[in-house]
Structure formats: C-alpha cells, structure tokens
C-alpha cells in the first residue's frame, strides 16, 4: 500500500476540519471493509484515513416505533440485527444487514459506509430507499439532509462535498400494516456481490387486502441504486393479485439499465429484476399482513 496517514478525531468538528483541509485526499474509515481494500488495490488514492469510530454520534443506535430509527454512520451491521426492535420494525434493512459479506464483515462493516461507498450493487441501499431513509450529513455549516435515493450520483460517487461526511441515517417510523423486504440474487449462498438486488416496502389498508403505499428500489442494474416510483405507484390502490405484482415487476424491469459484466449479463439481470421484484413484493406483503 502507498503511505497514508491515520487520524482518529473525537468530535464532529474535528472530523469536519480534517475533511475540509484534505478534500478528496481524505476518506472516512468506519468498518474499513471496502476502503482498506480499495486503497490497498490502488482503486482509491487517498493520503489520509479519518477513523470516525471515536465520535459518539456515528456510533449512535436508537430505535422505537414512535420516533423511528437513528443509525449512526459507523454502526456495524451486527448491531442492527442484534438490536431487539429493528428486525421487527425494519425487516428490509435487517435482511440487508444479514446479507452483507459474512459474519466477519458484519462485525465491522456499517450501513453508512455501504452507502458512502456507493457501489451500484450495495445491499443496504435499496433497503434504505424502500424505508424512505434520509442521510444526515455533517459539514462546515452544520448538518443537512438528503434522501438516500439522491445520495449516490455515480458508481463510487456521492453528493458529499468538501468538508462533509455522513453522520447518520434517519429512517421514519414504520407505518401501521407495513412490511419491507430486501432480496438479492447471488450465485453462491453468501459472500457474493449482488447480481441484482431489490428492496421493497408496502403499506396495506385496514382490511390488509389493498396496498396504499409502496416503494420499489433496485440495486446492481444501474450506475446507482434506483427508486422506481412507477412500480410502487402501480401497486397503490390495487388488489394484491399476482397480476398486479407482475405489472409492478415489469415496470421495474423497464426502469432497470443493467450492464453485462463478469457477474451477469444484461438480459439475465433484467430477467432477475422481474423475478426478484415479484418475490420481494410477495414477501413484503406477507410481512405487512403479519405486522
């Protein structure tokens, strides 16, 4: 690896100052499971790694059904699924946290880091988008918020500007009678990057037979994870029949812009979008019915 410096600021202000000074020569270090590999393999050129884990706000994890979820940017995946309420209230996010890498990766990797790494195939981002998550960004002027579906701008690039870093994710409290799910296709059973990922959230009416709100988000089929509003809209006020789900899945397929690479070719990915969207919706609806 090239020579780098390491800093471990203890406050948000210290971290902001370091990022402001170094610009894109510095990157945040949370779990390290992406950034360390990238620097080691010369895929990201940095002079300074800023270890955020000594800043209290990035380690914060609080969740309740009234106020929602506050997920510090450096909170490792395991804390998400071991926390008692999150699996029940945010099952889609929990699905993703259980799928990123394997046990060893989940001990360190954070959803915040997964978002900032901005891989088109990131597992947590479609789930965050389905949950209407908001990124809380710290900078020289205080904090600002950006909807997660607008956070990634290109593969590996985000809206973070000079002097900014991701502080936390804020997920609104789940609506009554809602269910969420994240599913992905990989060739093995673990350890792979998603060939296609789908995160959905649905809210049902009081009779639990019609959908009153839905969000469908796709991963690994475009330069950034996608929110597909038309697929969600197609479900609203519709019955929950297979035909309706198929229609939403077809809209998702149309929105997908997959490439062919060594993880899958474009036709296959588009096909999987249809398959996984149907399966994700069926699963989310069942969770909504049981909630």
């Amino acid at each position, binding site marked *: 690896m090239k020579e780098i410096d390491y800093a471990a600021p203890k406050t948000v202000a210290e971290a902001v100052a370091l990022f402001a000074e170094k610009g894109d020569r510095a990157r945040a270090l949370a779990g390290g499971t992406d950034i360390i590999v990238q620097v080691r393999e010369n895929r990201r050129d940095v002079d300074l790694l800023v270890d955020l884990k000594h800043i209290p706000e990035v380690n914060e994890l609080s969740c309740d059904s009234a106020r929602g979820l506050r997920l510090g940017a450096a909170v490792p995946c395991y804390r998400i699924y071991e926390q008692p309420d999150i699996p029940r209230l945010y099952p889609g996010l929990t699905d993703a946290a259980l799928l990123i890498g394997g046990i060893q990766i989940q001990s360190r990797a954070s959803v915040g880091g997964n978002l900032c790494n901005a891989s088109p195939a990131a597992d947590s981002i479609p789930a965050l988008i389905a949950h209407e998550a908001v990124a809380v960004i710290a900078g020289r002027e205080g904090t600002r918020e950006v909807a997660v579906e607008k956070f990634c701008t290109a593969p590996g690039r985000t809206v973070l500007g000079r002097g900014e870093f991701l502080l936390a994710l804020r997920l609104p409290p789940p609506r009554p009678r809602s269910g969420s799910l994240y599913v992905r296709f990989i*060739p093995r*059973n*673990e350890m*792979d*990057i998603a*060939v296609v990922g789908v995160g959905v959230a649905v809210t049902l009416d009081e009779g639990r037979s019609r959908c009153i709100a839905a969000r469908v988000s796709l991963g690994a089929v475009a330069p950034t994870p996608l929110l597909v509003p038309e697929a969600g809209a197609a479900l609203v006020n519709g019955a929950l029949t297979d035909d309706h789900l198929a229609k939403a899945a077809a809209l998702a397929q149309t929105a997908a812009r997959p490439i062919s690479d*060594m993880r899958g070719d474009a036709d*296959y990915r588009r096909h999987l979008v249809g398959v996984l969207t149907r399966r994700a919706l069926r699963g989310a609806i069942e969770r909504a019915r049981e909630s």
Partner: protein
Amino acid sequence: MSTSTNGYKVIGTRPIRHDGVDKVTGRAVYGADVQMPGLLHGRILRSPIPHGCIKKIDASKALALPGVEAVVTAADFPNPGDKIAELGEGAVNLRHLSSNCLARGKVLYKGQAVAAVAAVSPHVAEEALKLIAVEYEPLPHVTDVVEAMRDGAPLLHDDLVTESLGKPTGKRSNVAKHFQFKIGDVEKGFAEAAVVVEREFHTATVHQGYIEPHAATALWSADGSVTIWCSTQGAFTVRAQMAELLDLPVSRIKAVPTEIGGGFGGKIRVYLEPVAAALSKKTGRPVKITMNRTEVFEGTGPTPGSYIKVKMGADKSGRLTAAQAYLAYEAGAFPGSPVGPGAMCIFACYNIPNVHIDGYDVVVNKPATSAYRAPGATNAAFASETVVDEICEKLNIDPLDFRLKNAAHEGTRRADGPVYPRIGMIETVEAAKKHPHYNSPLAGPNRGRGVATGFWFNCGLKSSATASVNADGTVSLVEGSTDIGGTRTSIAMQLAEALGLRAEDVRPVVADTDMVGYTDVTGGSRVTFATGWAAYEAAQDIKRQMVARAALVWGVKPEDVSYDAGVLRCKTDDAKRLTFKELAEKLHATGGTIVGRASVDPTGVGGGFATHVVDVEVDPETGKVTVLRYTAVQDVGQAVHPSYVEGQMQGGAVQGIGWALNEEYAYNARGEMTNASFLDYRMPTSLDLPMIDTVMVEVANPGHPYGVRGVGEVPIVPPPAALANAIYRAVGVRLTQLPMSPGRVVKAVLAKK
C-alpha cells in the same frame, strides 16, 4: 463409511495425525511464516498486457527509492538456450520455465513476471514496483482455444511448429502438438450402433484455489550455496529446477520444504524461488517473496479451458460399439497442457472395441497451465459422461446398469495402449447401485439425480526413507514427501504396521534435500503408495538388523530368530523373547543404534475409479443450482488412514462441484482476467454444500505390500458430469458449457420453453 482393518493392526485405524497439534494451534510453519534476521521482502512486477515485446526496462527510479536494495530481471538469470530437462513429472523446456519466472524478450499473458524488487518492507517493495518503467510493444492476443487454432490467429511463439502424430509439420501455429489414440474401426462401430450421440463442449479455465498463496525465502550464502525455504509439493523438484534455471550444481542448493497450504498440482513448478535467489545473490541478504491472491490467479498455473467433441454409439442392448473424441486444450502461454492424460481418461471407464481420439495442445495468451488434480480428466469426463447419459436416456437403460454392462475390467485395453490389471470399476458402480442414496425417492419439482463415473491412473515414481530406532523403542522416520493431506501419518502407519509398533511410536519428519534421499513430488496420488512403500522397505531393513542383533544378544544364528508383530523370539529356545522396545533399549550397549533405509521406484501402481451420485434442486427462474445430496463411491485399495481417504474423496468432489457450477476465469476483450479475487472467483463455501457421503470400496491393489491405491485425484473427475446429468433430470436442459452458472441455466430453460 467404515472400512475393515483386514487383519492389520495399524493400517485401517484412525490415529491422530502427528503434525496435528501444531496445525490446530497455529504453530506449524508455512512458507510465508519463515522469518530470519536481515530478511528483505520481494515483490514482482507483472505484465499489464496479454501479449507484447519488452522493449526496455528502466529500474533507476525504483532503485533510488529509500529502502530498495535490488531489482532483477531475466537478464539476471543465465540464458537457458533450448535445453529440455527431466525434472521428475515430465520433460520441461527450460527457456519456457525461465521466462515464466521472469519474462525474457516477450510477455505472453497478463500477469507474467517481468521484474522483481527486494526492499526492507513489503510495502516499500510494492511502491517500488510502480517506479519501474517498462516499455512494451503490444501485440494482438488470443485467449480462446478454438480461436487460437484458426489460420490467421495471433501466434504466440516464433518457433512453435506443430508436431502431429510424432512428426514436425513445418507449420507455424499455436497448436504445439496433435496426437491420436486408435483401437479398431470407429466407422464400422458407428455403423453398428442403434443410437449415436454427438455433442460439443466448452470448459473454462479454473484454478486449483489453494488457500495459501505461493511463498519462498532464499538465502544466497557467501560460500556460493543457496538455501530455499518454500511451500512446495516437492523439495527435490525445486532443487532440480533451481539448478537448471540458475546454472548451479544441485549440490550447491538446499531446498527446505515448509508446511504447505494446499497444492493440488499447482505448487510443483517454481515461480518465486529462483527470483528470490537472484535477489538474495544481489543483496547478500535473505529475501522472502510471497504472492498476493491476484498474483496467484494471474501468475501461476491454472488448469486448461477446453473444447471437446464427443461422439459415442451403442447397440440397442446398450453395448457401446464406438467412441470418438476431439480434445483441444489450452496450454496457456507455453506448450504442455494435460490433453494427453485427458485423452487417456476420457473413455477409460469402458470396454469399447472401436475408439478414435484426437488431442491438441494449444497455446493461448493465458498463464501457463499446471496440473490440477487428475489433470485433464475432469474436462474429458464432463464431455463423455454426459454423452453416455444421453445414450442411456435414449435406450431407456438405467445409467448404472449401462456402466456395468460396459465396464472396463482386468484385461480391458485402453485406447492409449495399457491393459488393465485388477481394477475396481465394476465394484464402485455396484456399490453405488446398492447405496441408499441411489435407491431413495427424490420428490419435488425441479429436482433431479445424476450419476457419473471417472478414472485416474495414478503414479508410482521414486521415494526414499530412512528410519532410526530410538532407545525407547520408538522409530524416527525421515522421508521427503511434503505433506499436503496427512501423508506423513499414513507413511508412519505403514512403517508401524511392518514393525508391529503403534502409529504413535513412529515419529515422521518431512526432510529437506540434504537430509533424505531423492523423492519425487507429492502429486499423482503417489505418496501413500510409493513413500509408504519406501517406509515399508526401510522397516524390512530394520527388521533384518533387529533380528541379527537379537541373534547376537542370544548367541544364536539369525535364522534362529523370528520377528512377528513387534516381538523377537528365539526359535530354538522359548524362553528367549524380546519386544522391539526391550531390544531397542539394548542397542547402544550391543553395537550401536539401528538405521533402516530404502529407496524405491515401484511399479504395480493401481488406477482409481469413482462413481458419484448427486441430487440437485434447480430454481428455474434464477438458474440457481442447489446440491441437496452427494455420495462419492471410489475404489480406494486398502485405506491406510480411512479419515484422510474420506477427506480426499470429499475435497475432490467439492472442487469438482465448484468447477461445475461457478468457477471460471472471466476474460475481457483486452485479454485481462476480470475476476482475479476470491470475491468473484467463486469457490464453494460451507453454506453451499451438504455433507459429502463417502463409500470406500476396498479393492486391494495386488501391486503394493499393503494393497494401497492412489486415492487423491479421481474424486474430482465425475462431479461436473454428475451435476450436468442431475440438472437435466431436474429441469430438462443439457448444458454443454462449464461452469453451469445460473445465467446459463436460465438461458437454457427459457430457450426450451
């Protein structure tokens, strides 16, 4: 799963392996664990392009970096000329071997070593690589065997002229060699067939996937001698290769094998060893070089991708009448693919009167291939065993019954010439047929069961052993076979059996090239067979000397002393008896310790047959194949240590499963491997597999004192074909390309609809 000990006391039991505690506590020293004072760290600069001429190498900036001590290129190796050397597992062109360690004049694959740096830390060495300026003139490249065989394909070697049927053709080509095996008259045979199936197959390059990357540490001493510590499948082949590449007598080289973290054939050829030595010579200090995982993929010796065409015919009773095969294997950058062994094995399970096989060894701009566990046979079996399956379906014959009807047996002549001695093909098929797995119902949609058989011929080759009797009645055994899978214990068990001792009473050590007699590589499924035989012979030597010593002690003639089950008795006086231990205690006082020795080059090698049964479930929407149940049946001769025999069967089967379902080198249009990492080169994890059941059929090899047969390689041969056949029965599609990855399965399923 269990075996009988067949009347043996030690053979057939399951003692704890002698090196076990060191390995479960992290104490065992592997190649990268070697440390010594003054150590420098080396790193290799590798070609970024798949084919080109090296115009200039300028290392001046690298040498100026603080902490960098030396840089070497091919200029620092003697020019080997056109020498061909016999290095233990076949003839080797030294110009090719040398160029593969440090490229001379040309680069022939992305990742080929071009220069090397020694520095005070691995990080400094790596940073120094970025400062070595190499000027290349890129040339067009070819990475597919069929493309490489076409007229007009970019040619890799100026001097490569096709040799066909033993004679040079005068044609410059990427086809290094064409050979044929023939028996009978295939035209006549096909004419007699009621059913003929002909199919074409493509398989991708795959890697052995050992978890330990290559590592070597060299010390070029002030007295001109070189010591090399390395993870290797053969210290003596390392010594021999180093001697040739560095133009040194073997007496000046000592190769010390460390523990080795997997090889499967990929750690026989040297890569780092002569480079580390050259750096050590330049710096006067020991130099350690390790590879990272990307280098292992791009810069070592995977096994060939291939194009295979198979045509087989059977009469309506299910007797095979003819078989024809065309095998074209990618040798990578230099000639020498295992297309020969592939051709030898492709129909080897069967007794077929008319056979015609054409084999082609073809160079392409990929790493030069190395052996990978039964090299060449898996590709071949994928082709032939799926064609057999199709014939069975057309004739409505149970696939195992078909194999029984056509099975090779003692006296069957193989297409490449040899006549089989006592073999176990029929026994393994019968055992599979009786097995509960084969007879259990498989219910549920998209589920199917497939079978396949496979053959590997195994090797004998040379081994030495020395064994000294200790005063406490134990024996110290020195042997030269690096231990990849528990062989030091299986060898010790054979010595113990021969002397009537316990396995724990033998202390085996894997020695360096100065400490033990010449021993060929750990490969070819030969170690338990041949080095075990050397231990057996060393034991006979000890026995003779113990008998003579007892005779001395008792004042009788040696003919009057018997040795049985570790007890010496005087035949003429019942009162005179000594256990081995009791006599051992007396040795120092009666003429000194006893040392037994042996050097063997045994014939009597037994080939191995395997029959595998697999149940799969296929998700027709995603193409995901789940292995539900797997049973590996194999004739293993006498299993010396059954746990490690089972382990070979399970490990080989799982490598075959990975090869079948997901593993491949993915290349882009620029001739670069795009998945050179364990993230995207997808080997099976524990979550991808069920338990692997094993059935050891013990058809003792009459050619070995303890009936040993090689077992390590044949288990990798049947899995891809077995899985292809299972997938067909699950979702009705026959896949002819490896790997049978999910995208391909879905494509075939949708095409069928």
